């Protein structure tokens, strides 16, 4: 058991160090950053705020990780968020119960994912292009649902998902924590994760060795759609309205970035949900940190770009071979054996 924890920590170590470094840097420029206080039975503080604000990207990153592990990519998640936010708002305002609204919204998200999955798995279209279709058309569809207006609602149940709290934590944090743990357990306590990695490494070979490639591929995109639906509900509940134009705008790129920061290669194969979640938190910490430290927010994107380039350079095969002589000899085979046990 302890060895599993150790290998897990070893995998997440670079991300944890990066997050700690960023948090320390912020708390030095902004005293009181690490303070936490309890008001009305809910935790308040910048750290909680990072976890709360990061909820949509964390959720998208969970689905995106699984899709990228199959050597795919899902560009449509931002648009699906907009569609699902619009659907949720229009159902709740037309008098449906909260349960029905959530059910329909989630179903729409999964359906969007299924469409992407069918294009990739059955029609064999490149993932970038297959998901581009929904990315282009999605915002139009969302506007069709809201009829071009920003659809507002005041259903207390739906608003609770965006700004309520549960056992002292904001609802969005509870939602992504529970969902993330569920997905991570699902893929790692079964052979699913390994099969997904097999598809990412070599789709043809895994099909030939009996993996149900099309089913798993479609399921991966459906999971991504589900994540986008939940993120869309949270985003809409947060502003108490559905904004077809701006909901989830460019979040697909943040989600991809979170996955890359988490150390999952865009070339498919190995993945870690926990690392992607950490990646999303790192990105949100940078955003919040830049905002708090009084640094001009204009530099936000440049810093983000610098971080992506830095991480990518470290990940690139060319760079690794060039600096291979620096690497400490690893005991990798032993740890993977332990992991298997």
């Amino acid at each position, binding site marked *: 058991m302890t060895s599993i924890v150790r290998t897990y920590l070893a995998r997440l170590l670079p991300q944890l160090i990066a997050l700690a470094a960023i948090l320390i840097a912020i708390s030095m420029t902004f005293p009181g950053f690490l303070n936490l206080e309890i008001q009305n039975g809910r935790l308040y503080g910048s750290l909680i705020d990072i976890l709360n604000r990061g909820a949509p990207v964390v959720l998208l990153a969970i689905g995106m990780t699984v899709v990228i592990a199959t050597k795919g*990519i899902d560009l449509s998640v931002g648009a699906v968020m907009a569609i699902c936010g619009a659907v949720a708002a229009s159902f709740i305002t037309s008098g449906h119960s909260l349960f029905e609204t959530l059910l329909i919204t989630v179903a729409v998200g999964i359906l969007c994912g299924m469409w992407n999955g069918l*294009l990739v798995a059955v*029609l*064999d*279209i*490149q993932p*970038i*292009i*297959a998901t*581009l*279709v*929904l*990315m*282009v*058309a*999605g*915002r*139009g*569809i969302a*506007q*069709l649902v809201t009829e*071009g207006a920003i659809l507002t609602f005041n259903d207390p149940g739906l608003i609770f998902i965006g700004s309520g709290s549960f056992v002292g934590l904001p609802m969005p944090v509870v939602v992504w924590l529970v969902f993330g743990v569920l997905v991570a357990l699902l893929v790692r306590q079964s052979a699913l994760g390994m099969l997904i990695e097999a598809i990412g490494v070599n789709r043809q070979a895994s099909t030939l060795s009996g993996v149900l490639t099309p089913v798993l591929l479609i399921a991966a995109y459906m999971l991504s759609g589900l994540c986008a639906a939940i993120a869309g509900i949270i985003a809409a509940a947060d502003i108490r309205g559905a904004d*077809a134009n701006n909901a989830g705008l460019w979040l697909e*790129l943040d989600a*991809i*970035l979170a996955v*890359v920061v988490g150390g999952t290669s*865009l*070339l498919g194969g190995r993945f870690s949900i926990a690392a992607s979640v950490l990646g999303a938190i790192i990105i949100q910490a940078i955003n919040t940190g830049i905002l708090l430290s009084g640094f*001009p*927010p*204009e*530099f*936000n*994107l*440049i*810093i*983000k*770009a*610098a971080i*992506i*380039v830095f991480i*990518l*350079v470290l990940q*690139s*095969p*060319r*760079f690794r071979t060039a600096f291979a002589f620096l690497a400490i000899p690893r005991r990798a085979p032993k740890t993977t054996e332990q992991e298997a046990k």
Partner: protein
Amino acid sequence: MKQKYLPLTATILIFVLSYALCAAQYPNILSTRVIGNLLTDNAFLGIAAVGMTFVILSGGIDLSVGSVIAFTGVFLAVVLEHTSMHPLVAFALVLAITTLFGALMGMIIHYLEMPAFIVTLAGMFLARGMAFVLSIDSIPIKHPFYATLKGLYYKLPGGGRITLIGGLMLLVFAAGILIAHRTRFGTNVYALGGGTATAKLMGVPVASTTVKIYALSGLLAGLSGIVFSLYTSAGYSLAAVGVELDAITAVVIGGTLLTGGSGFVAGTLVGIFIQGLIQTYITFDGSLSSWWTKILIGALLFAFILLQKGIIHLSRDARQRA
């Protein structure tokens, strides 16, 4: 007919058919004024799409285009407001910067063996960030030279105007067609799209071609930014968001294969016209909302991807039978 011309023919056919349908409903759509506006309104998108066509022909992708356009606009606005530099000098300066920027991305893609998607995504953040750093406000450009440039146009019979920027787009397309089909660089681009390993074995200078492709895309994105600043007479760091996607869409509708290696620069021009026509029709109709543009373009995109898949499938069958 050769199979490689099939997507292009389909694109042209769809454009002619939809134009005829639009004209049947609104005969005024045939007027040279509408055609002139179609050119002017889509000039910046068209120029950026030429660069994108080369990138996609080589099997890559360039997501930084929209941000580079915004950066160019803000750069020009800031320079023209705060210095006494002549716009032409500023144009040359900004084109040098964007070309270098593109070349740099090409180098990272080739030498560090990173996927073009993520490198140009970083480029997208960087260029947009640089635009933000220069200014977060929309800055009007009031230089008299801009007014002169905007006053230049060729008058068509019927009152239509081919403006400077509309004409420039046509020239860029003509140059793009020549480069793609009549130069060694063009041939290399197609070879690269067929497969990097194969291209290397055939003696294609992979490194310099990759760098040149992204440099060209950067140059054209910069030129597109200049055209955009002429079109709007302002520089704004939030401008041209998502133009790269419109450009990619135009390339795909234009019949270029996204896996690279097959397609035509001329097809992209028709792809631009189809997108512009949908927008114009919606404007003419008045009762349709602009979101139908996105849905229709998404549907068209899907139809063309299916068409291309079908053609590849058929040609594979034919080859197996032979």
